[in-house]
């Protein structure tokens, strides 16, 4: 039995690794493409954020004559540029980016201030993405400064002249907020979430290429007929193929992980001191555990993709089914981005998500319940065995060899 499985394993491994396309997929994509894309993505994000921070913001004020000192605060700030826009066209002008925000000062603003009433000033801007909050932060800064000045005058008028008296009036209770999460835990949470996703996708793609080639490909090339006419159990043929898909999937993931780690270290050299500290706290042992966690996920991918490839009639059909499975993997992998999703017993039984959550905990350095890993491996064995059992049953049907 072992001799048969080994013979099929080595034959398929040799056949796959001698295909130049596989080498390109295995090394070029993870080694160059991912770090390159990651680098340019970070550069772009940083540049975009810097640009938004420094760009001159065009604005308009409706009713500037009602409160000239507030209008002056904006006029004096060189990072703002005033543009006159009719009141009825303000929303459109903001959408067109002719202006980035607008202030509307009511006619009775002066009267309200002098009477000690609360003055309402409208601030209009556009925000559909979190990064656009910068417009609000920058645009309301003079308004906040003006408001604080008014508050101080009013307090002085009420007789609370000293700064301490004002503070005690405005903040009768001061609470000291202390977050006990370490830098590694805070940054590691995001880092761990981000790292798991590309690893899953690359691992899945690696398994998919190999599984389709070894099952559907063999049938299309006519070599499957050679195998099934040999005096060996079809289960052994499948197990040999499964091992190749699994080993190559793991190889894809390993290369990707080495590439990602190297990229993180290189990128981290130019990062903030905190980020550098976090990176220095992630040890080789943690990375080894992260790699070990890829073993169950690769096993599940290999078994499912082999089942899909055995079932499919052609490359085209296999690729279609693999795309659907890929979509499922994306959903499960992104589940860990959802706020509130953490490593619980329930999540430890959801494939892909469970490994993603453990990877995150490992990077954060906060994995405490190692029993969860047992649950993950248990789930993997059940799913992998079910997929393999399906493949074996299906592979015994003669129409699998001659689907035409």
């Amino acid at each position, binding site marked *: 039995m072992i*001799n*048969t499985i080994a*013979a*099929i394993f*080595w*034959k398929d491994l*040799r*056949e*796959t690794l*001698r*295909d130049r396309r596989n080498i390109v997929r295995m090394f070029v994509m993870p080694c160059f493409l991912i770090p390159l894309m990651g680098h340019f993505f970070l550069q772009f994000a940083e540049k975009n954020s810097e640009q938004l921070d420094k760009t001159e913001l065009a604005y308009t004020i409706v009713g500037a004559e009602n409160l000239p000192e507030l209008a002056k605060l904006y006029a004096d700030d060189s990072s703002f540029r005033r543009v006159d826009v009719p009141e009825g066209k303000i929303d459109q002008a903001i959408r067109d980016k002719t202006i980035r925000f607008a202030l509307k000062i009511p006619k009775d603003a002066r009267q309200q201030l002098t009477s000690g009433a609360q003055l309402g000033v409208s601030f209009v801007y556009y925000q559909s993405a979190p990064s656009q909050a910068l417009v609000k932060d920058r645009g309301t800064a003079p308004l906040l400064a003006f408001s604080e000045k008014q508050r101080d005058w009013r307090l002085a008028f009420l007789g609370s002249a000293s700064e301490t008296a004002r503070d005690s009036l405005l903040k009768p209770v001061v609470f000291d907020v202390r977050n006990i999460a370490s830098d590694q835990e805070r940054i590691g949470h995001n880092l761990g979430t981000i790292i798991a996703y590309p690893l899953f996708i690359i691992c899945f793609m690696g398994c998919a290429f190999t599984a389709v080639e070894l099952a559907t490909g063999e049938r299309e*090339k*006519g*070599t499957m*007929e*050679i195998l*099934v*006419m*040999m*005096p*060996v159990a079809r289960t052994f043929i499948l197990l040999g193929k499964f091992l190749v898909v699994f080993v190559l999937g793991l190889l894809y993931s390993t290369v990707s992980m080495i590439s990602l780690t190297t990229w993180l270290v290189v990128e981290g050299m130019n990062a903030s001191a905190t980020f550098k500290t976090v990176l220095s706290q992630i040890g080789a042992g943690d990375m080894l555990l992260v790699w070990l966690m890829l073993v169950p996920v690769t096993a599940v991918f290999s078994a499912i993709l082999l089942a899909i490839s055995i079932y499919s009639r052609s490359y085209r059909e296999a690729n279609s089914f693999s795309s659907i499975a890929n979509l499922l993997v994306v959903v499960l992998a992104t589940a860990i981005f959802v706020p509130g999703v953490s490593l619980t017993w329930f999540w430890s039984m959801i494939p892909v998500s469970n490994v993603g959550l453990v990877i995150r905990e490992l990077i954060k350095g906060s994995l405490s319940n190692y029993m969860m890993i047992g649950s993950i491996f248990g789930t993997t064995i059940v799913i992998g065995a079910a997929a393999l059992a399906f493949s074996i049953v299906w592979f015994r049907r*003669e129409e699998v*060899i*001659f689907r035409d």
Partner: protein
Amino acid sequence: MLAVSGVRKTFDLKQGKKKTPGPLDPREEGKQFHALRQVDFSVPKGTILGLLGANGAGKTTLMRILGTSLKPSAGSVRLSGFDSVKDANEVRKRVGFLSGNTGLYNNLDAQELLRFCGRMYGLSAGALEARIDELFEELEIGEFAHRRIGTLSAGMKQRVSIARSLVHSPEFIIFDEPTTGLDVPTAQIVLNYIERCRHAGKSVIFSTHHMHEVEKLCDQALLIHKGLVRFHGTPAQMKAQTGCSHLDDAYLSITGERSFSSKAQADTVAHALHHEVIEA
């Protein structure tokens, strides 16, 4: 000894995928297609049997049943006393199969392929190496044994394919159109090998459309037409039974695909077909 008795093979037709458009094929029945309707014959040891029939007649299906990659829907195939379904692995050890649709691993070389196949048949390392050397010599593979199969010509690939099917020294050999698409020297190597099999006491079934191969090599001919055996006997009996001087005429006469008003007309058509085949 190979004994085929009452073999039938039925495939399910996919909806909208009828086997024959237009006039109904007698083998089509509702959603089923009876590729083989009733096949009985036997092949004694050391016999070369030529399997004849038009494309789609059921030859490849029959060969796949003999090779155990397909199971008969009814009937049985016994080889040296072993049943092709119940003792499939015993039959596989004794059968060498080569089909026109059989592919090869393009990224392996001939030696690696034969070593892999030999291991799968349970040959010991020493016996396997000796067998590989023997096949390389017989089929003149030695000079390209270490080249990747994907880089070989069609003729070279066919010789590697034959070596692959014979690596375990099967007592019963099934070749599906082994000379199709080959140049004359390569076809000659293949035919010479089949001839040598007879002397080695092995049985060979090979399908062909080339009647001169049947005439030259075969002890027996089996003609299948639309899933039924229409003739089984020696090539000489085939001609005698139909009163034709050429096997091509005898073939056409048995299948009834063309009717001729006179023997002279039949001879003319058969002669033209013979040249057509050679040119092709």
